């Protein structure tokens, strides 16, 4: 489904990603861990098409298409979804209105009928209920005045409505209490299917107890330095990241 080959990315003249290789098949869940500033969000943003990054080498194939050649909205319509580490507040734009516009843009692209306001509201209410999200958030401006947890929940709510084929979750668990974490994880697990894949960026092994990954990768200074199964996450939790550099023959500790 997704194949990243030798991806090099710079921003403002500084190389952030220094040769990423990653293959994600349908049905798989990949977790990406790594120290602060290692390039995890950059990878997520580049996959979603954010401007301001220079791709200096490499390619990304998504369902047989050149992903890097597509506009952000085209990627979204083809099934890429990014749950932001820091969701943006959009004053004046109503959550429900915006999400219906988004869903209908995607449905048009798929050649499906658009949903009218009533149909959409019904869908939105049922999904909000599953995520135990306060219904009043539906009619508020997107993320405006939402608490940190509400913003994260809103991301997963959007994902459950848009039903992407590739969900990229950037630290969706950060700042969530254990109850919220369980609910959000259930929301993600409900979407897991043989056709759908997830890339989950996290700092905490805790999340991976609820969303069990097939693979765990460690990103350090712009490179995937180690890959393994879910037990790698447990090891990282115990030992931190520095041993990986020592293993690679480097002496300096990680900041």
């Amino acid at each position: 489904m997704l194949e990243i080959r030798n991806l090099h990315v710079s921003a403002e003249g500084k190389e952030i990603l220094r040769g990423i290789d990653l293959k994600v098949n349908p049905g798989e869940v990949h977790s990406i861990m790594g120290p602060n500033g290692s390039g995890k969000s950059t990878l997520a943003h580049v996959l979603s098409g954010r401007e301001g990054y220079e791709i200096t080498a490499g390619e990304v194939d998504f369902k047989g298409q050149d992903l890097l050649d597509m506009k952000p909205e085209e990627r979204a319509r083809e099934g890429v979804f990014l749950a932001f580490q820091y969701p943006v507040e959009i004053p004046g734009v109503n959550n429900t209105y915006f999400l219906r516009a988004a869903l209908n843009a995607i449905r048009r692209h798929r050649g499906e009928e658009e949903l009218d306001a009533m149909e959409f509201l019904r869908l939105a209410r049922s999904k909000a209920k599953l995520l135990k999200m306060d219904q009043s958030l539906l009619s508020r401006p997107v993320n405006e005045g939402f608490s940190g947890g509400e913003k994260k929940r809103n991301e997963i709510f959007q994902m459950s409505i848009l039903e992407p084929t590739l969900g990229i979750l950037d630290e969706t668990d950060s700042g969530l209490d254990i109850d919220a974490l369980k609910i959000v994880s259930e929301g993600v697990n409900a979407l897991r299917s043989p056709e759908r894949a997830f890339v989950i960026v996290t700092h905490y092994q805790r999340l991976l107890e609820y969303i069990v990954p097939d693979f765990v990768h460690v990103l350090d200074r712009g490179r995937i330095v180690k890959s393994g199964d879910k037990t790698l996450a447990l090891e990282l939790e115990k030992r931190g990241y520095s041993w990986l550099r020592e293993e690679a023959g480097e002496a300096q500790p990680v900041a």
Partner: protein
Amino acid sequence: MTEAVLETKKNAAMKLAGLARREANGEPDWLLDLRGKALDQFQVKGLPDRKVEAWRDTDLGRLKAMDFQSSTRESDFGGVERLEDLRFASLDCPRLVFVNGRFSTELSSDADSLGGVTLGGIAKQADANGSVRAHLGELSKWQDNAFDALNLAMFEDGALIEVQGGIEVEKPIHVVFVNLSNGQNGPFVVNPRVLVVAGESSKVSIIESHLGSGEGSYFSNAVTEIVTGDNATVDHYKVQLELESAVHISSLGSVQERDSNLRTTVITLGGGLVRNEINSVFAGEGGWSELNGLYLVDEDHHVDNFTRIGHEKAHCDSREMYRGILADSARAVFRGRIVVSEGAQQTDSKQTNNNLLLSDRALVNTKPQLEIYADDVKCTHGATVGQLDDDAVFYLQTRGISKEDARVMLIYAFAGEVVNRVGVERLREELDSHLLKWLPRCV
């Protein structure tokens, strides 16, 4: 100042003064007398230039370059159907229609249909109606402001809306000024005028539409005076969609008596050179005043909003929110003066001016001016000039919304802060559809 510039300046003012009507036309002596004084005042003052502080950021070159031919012009509009085609001309409420400054009985609703309300042309009522004599020219600043003086000297007719005490007028009252330019009658001058007198505990909504039709250049010099009586509520809208070759200069004078509420919303959608001035004064305690504004400016057009709120009495609140959207190489000026007099304790005043620049050639000059002579007051102000938030655009795109749609959505939401406060549903709908037509061209 070079001689040539001096010459143009003189010329424009002289031409305008020369056009002022001199014949009596059956007007009462007091009015003729007032007009004479106003004309003298205009001739003494002349048109302002940028050395005058209040005009520092607005150049009247476009006006001064107009070679005025006459103040008489075609006013045969050709029937109601054509009026219905103009946006903001039909809002499903009683209306008074003026074509090129002249009252049109044919296009207006029946003036006698509203109980407790006097509705009609000022000219006809000048003799008999006590309010006209008591208030006409009283609230506008014709002694200081050349354009107010010019209007008073020259205005042919205008709308009078007088609401008796205790009357709540159910439907908004709509005053439509159509400026019809056929390209051959130009450049001409019109002086639209509105006088609103809301009696004690009355309630009324008033919409002024200033609409251009046809092509060619003209100068519309509008004056509105509003007296909001004790405990009365006035909701006033001025929607302006003049031709882009037109110059529109307007001035609103308002006096609020004790415990009164005034909301005035100035919506600027057209005109090549525009200036909207507001002078609003609290003359009694316990008043509430809300000044809202929205301006959409494109091409090389220039819009100047100049407001002054005079807190002369204690315990009054004012809220001011102006928002502007600028495309191409548009220019906008916002000056918001708030003057709190000595003794106007417990004043609570809040002012914001937010501007969205859609092009890096557009320019905004915004300046709050607080003058506070009382010590127990709460006054805040804030101005912003910014571009669309790229992060927000990207966020919407990652949900499948095209970049263009995302931009429209965000600009629309920005304008919505003002549009959503419009209390007349039909007007809000018309504004919405105008916005949705205007916006995509600018993203």
